[in-house]
């Protein structure tokens, strides 16, 4: 009897702890903002000077190669200076000194990242979750058709805050739970705070480009071309 009680209490404790753990993911998944006050001029080995804090300037060659590899739209002048790989839920946002212009949203499914460009400068970047192989996120160039701050999907019984629909059949960019093993039914899931900021600046008609980048082409190019040419 003593062992039965012991087993029961241990089992109950375990179950309680697991349920508590399960209820906490929203708290554990709080997005971590990378400090954007790092002055990259002081960092070693960086050839291109930064005109704005937390921002790295792209050379014309880099910009051209990046556009060819579907990493970003053509004509980008600077990107956010992020030295470490981002994790799910992390994002960087810095629009200091970037002039007002139309926004261009760039979603790279292969790299699981989203980048927001304005006037040739990257102002925000985050890790995303996207559709499964069965329910794929469509590739191509879209426009934001409608915006919904509080959206509740009846199809999936899920909250989709800050939903920005890009297709008629329900593909949207919206706030989502960000986990490495997580996927969606075709939507692009963003961190909460990131989606809120994007929702504020994006308008109906804003271009959204969803691509599958090709970083190997850059690698091939660099191995074939001596660096001294540039």
């Amino acid at each position: 009897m003593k062992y039965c009680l012991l087993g029961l209490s241990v089992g109950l404790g375990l179950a309680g702890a697991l349920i508590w753990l399960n209820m906490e993911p929203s708290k554990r998944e709080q997005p971590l903002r990378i400090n954007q006050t790092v002055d990259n001029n002081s960092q070693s080995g960086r050839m291109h000077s930064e005109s704005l804090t937390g921002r790295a300037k792209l050379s014309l060659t880099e910009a051209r190669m990046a556009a060819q590899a579907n990493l970003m739209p053509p004509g980008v002048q600077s990107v956010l200076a992020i030295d470490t790989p981002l994790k799910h839920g992390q994002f960087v946002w810095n629009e200091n000194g970037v002039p007002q212009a139309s926004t261009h949203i760039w979603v790279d499914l292969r790299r699981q990242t989203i980048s927001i460009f304005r006037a040739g400068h990257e102002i925000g970047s985050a890790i995303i979750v996207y559709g499964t192989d069965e329910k794929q996120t469509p590739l191509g160039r879209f426009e934001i058709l409608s915006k919904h701050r509080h959206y509740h999907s009846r199809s999936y019984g899920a909250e989709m805050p800050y939903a920005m629909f890009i297709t008629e059949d329900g593909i949207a960019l919206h706030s989502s739970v960000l986990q490495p093993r997580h996927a969606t039914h075709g939507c692009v899931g963003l961190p909460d705070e990131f989606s809120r900021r994007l929702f504020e600046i994006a308008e109906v008609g804003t271009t959204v480009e969803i691509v599958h980048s090709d970083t190997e082409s850059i690698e091939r190019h660099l191995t074939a071309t001596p660096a001294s040419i540039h």
Partner: protein
Amino acid sequence: MEFFNILRVQSKRGLLLATAAFGLLGIAVLYHQDLIPSAWARSTEPDKGYHAFQQTDTAFQTLSDFINRSPGERGEIDRLKGVFTKGIGPQEDRSSVFPPSQRALGKVFDPDPLTIDAAQQGPIVPLTSSFDDVGTPMGLIPLDQTIGGSLGPGNIANTIPGSVIFGPNGSSSSGGSGGGGGDNPPPPPTSAVPEPSAWALLLVGFFGAGFALRKGRAKDDRRRQMVAS
């Protein structure tokens, strides 16, 4: 009683095995119910087929950093449930994004008292003394509701705002069914999923029953011993 005799195993190893089996069963049930967070239950595998972009040339440092900020290609993902399910993987709690400002209990809403007062536009005047054949009260009639002409009291009462209508005895076709709904709303329906307190009570009940049976058995044993001696 036979069942409890089986439980009274003499060897400690058997009890330990039973305890372990119980624990494993509990974990299996929790896992099946998706109560174990997937990240905890299954170790996160590294993403497949992606190696960090190697770049030694500082001329391409910015582009290299841009590529390397990605965690890589997505690896294996958690299974998707059906289309019309509550979501993907463990139940998502999105309430932290937009905390609810109101709470509804089973879709039962209290009537707004202000609207009832506005419809009545005056105090309730019972007409108990106006009619000889006073029947059962039929409810409150709002001002704008017309009553079928078959009943005299109804017609008269219609002229008095907010009056209480009494139909004649045996009459069931009176028009007094409309009203402000001043009664208390029905209690909210019981949820299909038991609350945690209900589970706790169930467990306490099991313990109580087990304790009582055990005590009873001990008493029986003592009585049997007394009879035998």
